[in-house]
């Protein structure tokens, strides 16, 4: 399977997590460890503070639309241990919501805003959850797979909040 040289295999990581938090691993492969959404924040906080894991830095946070659900992919890394941990959480697609990591990692702030903007996933307890690339009032969330099939979706239409409803024409 595909692994970066720093990446900890999912099996090892799941064992590490299982030792401290029993029965929290939903699933794992070589690439990732899937956590339950209830334990997500708790485990990541533990990973940040644990001496052996030492996930000091959040490398990457992004989401994937799996058509029936959303996946949040989080890559944490330890600089001193030279390890990369890949974590996945599956969340409900109808009312997507997940705890925010911004209070643990300053670097999560902008990345979570990006995910919120492009996927419409709500990050609870995020200090400043606003759209980042698109303007307020943009219809829909572009990186969802069904963006073009949405009702009232007019992608590419320049509709800024200050423009009047009647005036916009293609």
């Amino acid at each position, binding site marked *: 399977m595909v692994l970066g040289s720093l990446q900890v295999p999912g099996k090892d990581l799941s064992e590490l997590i299982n030792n401290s938090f029993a029965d929290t691993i939903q699933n794992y492969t070589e690439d990732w460890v899937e956590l339950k959404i209830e334990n997500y924040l708790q485990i990541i906080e533990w990973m940040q503070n644990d001496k052996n894991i*030492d996930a*000091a*830095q959040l490398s990457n946070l992004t989401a994937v639309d799996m058509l029936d659900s959303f996946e949040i992919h989080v890559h944490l890394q*330890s*600089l*001193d241990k*030279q390890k990369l941990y890949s974590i996945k959480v599956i969340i409900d697609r109808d009312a997507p919501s997940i705890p925010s990591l911004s209070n643990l990692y300053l670097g999560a702030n902008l990345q979570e805003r990006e995910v919120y903007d492009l996927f419409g996933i709500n990050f609870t307890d995020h200090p400043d959850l606003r759209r980042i690339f698109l303007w307020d009032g943009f219809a829909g969330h572009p990186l969802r797979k069904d963006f073009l099939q949405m009702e009232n979706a007019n992608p590419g239409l320049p509709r800024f909040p200050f423009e009047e409803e009647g005036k916009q024409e293609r």
Partner: protein
Amino acid sequence: MSFFNQVFKGPQLAYYFKKISIAVFIFIVIVAGYFFSQLFFDLSKFSQFIFDFVLQRSNYNFAYFTSSIIGALGIISFVGLVLLVGSWVERRVIAKFQIRVGPNRVGPFGLLQPIADAIKLMQKEVLVPAIADKTLFLIPPVAIFLPAILAWGPIPWAPNMSYLNINVGILYVFAVSSLTVPIIFFAGWSSMNHYALLGSMRTVAMMVSYEIPISLSLLSVAIITGTLNFSEIVLWQSTNSIWLGLFMPFSLFTFFFASTAEINRTPNDIAEAESEIVAGYHIEYSGMKAGLFMAVELGNAVLLGALVTSLFLNGWFLFGIEKFVPPYIIFIGKTVAIYLLLIWLRATFPRFRLDQLMNFAWKTLIPVSIINFFVIAIEVTILNQFQSTGILIYIFALFNIFLFLGLIVVWSKIFSVDKFQPEKIQPKFAGEIGGLEAMKGVKSVD
């Protein structure tokens, strides 16, 4: 070249012909220049001629009036010429510094570029921001020319060649140039733009601070020469055969540095810091209105050159060369040298921050200026005990130079500048790769 090739049947001959013709041309220029300089050695006889010419046909008042108007026109047209040539010089020289070519398309060597720029700027629409105070917005670009031109009045170009040969010359220039402050403030305020307001606030703060060191350095010039008249200051330096810039280097430095702050030149151009507040107080001005602000700044830079020349660099005297070359040429040459120095500074240095400049003015320049002023006052008292200054003035000059250096050392100790010695702040090389743990393993660069 092809013409030469046809005539001389060979590239070699054409090459030499070109060289020889350049030599002949230079020779002709030198000879013509000599006759020219003899003819125009003393320009005051022209004004005398005009005065007499009118006096024979009219009364004294009218003759005086006419000749003064002509003189004023001369000053104004000279300033206009300075603005045109100066902008060309600045752009070309800065281009040389920055390994570019600079304006080279309009006219020979791009000499007509300033005129083309002016025409283009004048064609532009007069834009006034909707919320601006229209009257107040349109007055400053024009009004700022008033002090910029008036200040050229008492500049001593040559013996008997000073338009306003008044007793309060230094004070006059100082007073007139202080009029720019409210004008710049009005420009910034009436634009109703935060950047403009920041720019004008900075300008006012700077000018208020830097007028004190300027006046202290001018005061030391005044006490040693015993006059405020520019021509007499130049003559004093000549009779005592020392340049005031050498006699009191700190006053020269203070005057030069503080003046660059007053006229918004790098490294002190915080009032229109491009990377911070875009254009400062004239951000909302476009077309010729912005052009006028730029022109005034350029004119002020040249004016600073003329002031430094006459106050500190012995004006039109240059080791006896003034007997062969028209003195005003020497004066203009020195002015241009200072102007080139300003361009050099602009091309080289980054900009200070506002608070750094303020600290420098209040914590360094003003106290050191006061020390310097007292030292010079004591020296003047001693010098006045003797009939001729003689060798003593050179001793004092040497003392002042060492005082200047010593003060630099003392002040750098006070503000502990040496903790930023380049070798102390160089980066290091990582020993091993990692995070906070691995930070202990860094080794120095060698």
